[in-house]
């Protein structure tokens, strides 16, 4: 019970800090909308083109916007040695991981709450379906989980803004491909059953990443 209370406390702390500054969410939102506009001009997203390109455009936008937020999330803990404050406390290191990863996933989710309806409205692509929302949730959780783990590694390097995307994007490929493919099937009108292979891949990826993070996060954080 204490474990979950601490996860919750870390999550609430991050959300409270973000509420005061709004710096992460605003950067992620502005980036996402700009990316959407650029893609729409570059790819002429109409009709069949829009349905074919939508999954890739959506997940590219989510991935890059997410990376912005991930980097900032761990950098916030480096200010004034706050990560030392967490490490000094009798807190299981995995609670720190879960608290930070959930916070990152929520921020990405908030961006998607704006992005999905906007995309659907602008380009006539049916993204607001239960199947698409499920895939979006699973893909976001996986990306946030692997991103939180790697951001914790990158934050201690000098070139952390560059290191994170270099490490994250290759490792996130399974989740991104699965998300794109599953979204593609659903956007073309296919039932969720036809996308189950990709959905299962997403679930397995998420579980593997969480397991790896649980085993390694403590070592990543400590000197």
């Amino acid at each position, binding site marked *: 019970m204490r474990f979950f209370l601490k996860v919750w406390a870390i999550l609430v702390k991050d959300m*409270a800090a973000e509420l005061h500054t709004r710096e992460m969410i605003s950067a992620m939102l502005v980036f996402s909308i700009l990316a959407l506009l650029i893609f729409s001009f570059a790819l002429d997203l109409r009709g069949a083109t829009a349905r074919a390109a939508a999954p890739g455009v959506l997940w590219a936008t989510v991935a890059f916007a997410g990376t912005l937020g991930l980097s900032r999330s761990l950098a916030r803990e480096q200010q004034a040695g706050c990560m030392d404050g967490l490490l000094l406390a*009798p807190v299981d290191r995995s609670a720190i991981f879960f608290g930070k990863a959930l916070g990152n996933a929520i921020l990405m989710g908030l961006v998607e709450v704006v992005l999905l309806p906007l995309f659907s409205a602008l380009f006539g692509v049916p993204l607001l379906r239960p199947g698409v929302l499920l895939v979006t949730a699973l893909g976001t959780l996986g990306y946030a989980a692997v991103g939180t783990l790697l951001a914790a590694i990158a934050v201690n390097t000098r070139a952390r803004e560059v290191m994170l995307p270099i490490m994250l994007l290759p490792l996130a490929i399974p989740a991104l491909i699965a998300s794109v493919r599953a979204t593609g099937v659903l956007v073309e009108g296919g039932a969720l059953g036809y996308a189950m292979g990709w959905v299962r891949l997403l679930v397995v990826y998420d579980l593997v990443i969480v397991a790896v993070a649980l085993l390694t996060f403590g070592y990543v954080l*400590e000197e």
Partner: protein
Amino acid sequence: MIQARDLFKSFGPRVALAGVNISVETGEFVTLVGPNGAGKTTLLRILATLTRPTSGAVQIAGLDPARAGSEARRRIGFLSHQTLLYDDLSAEQNLRFYARMYDLDAAAARVDDLLERVGLAARREDLVRTLSRGMHQRLALARSVLHRPQVLLLDEPYTGLDPQAAQALTDLLVELVGEGGTILLTTHNLERGLALGRRVVMLARGRVVCDKPRDSIDPATFGEAYQALATK
């Protein structure tokens, strides 16, 4: 209460601690002095479980941090150059957060009491980044004693403190010792170090070079020895 045996710590080729042996009894107030680069901060960070020694053994409050890290951390308070405070949270939010991390009962009352004692009750809802440096350090002090630690490790805690804050710190330290707390404090300020601690340990180039009760120290001779080490 604090035992460090044959502590070695190296960062690559650089040796920060070269066989440090130090013990601090329950209720003792020990001042650790030494020139820059002597290894004071490294030693404190090892004792605070923030970094692992390359070799050697540590015991805090009877516990081996390598085996009982969580329980050991519950008994340690740490105050350093960095405040460990979130700039984007208010003073009160910071303390309440750490109270949850330490599973404190009656957290609200404890937070209220500490904010009063460090003179920040009127600024409790202000974001930390709007507070002055002295206020930061006072709030950091409150954070470090929030969970009533048995052992308090302080790394140059008087740096940047205004006189009011310095007095608040001294008062809190005296109170903590009166309650049986154990304190290890590092400082560059020899005069203050000799005034505060009952025992003084001098560290130089990663080794303990002097460990004496304060009453047996001649300040002039001690000061000369310190200057000689600092300029080597």
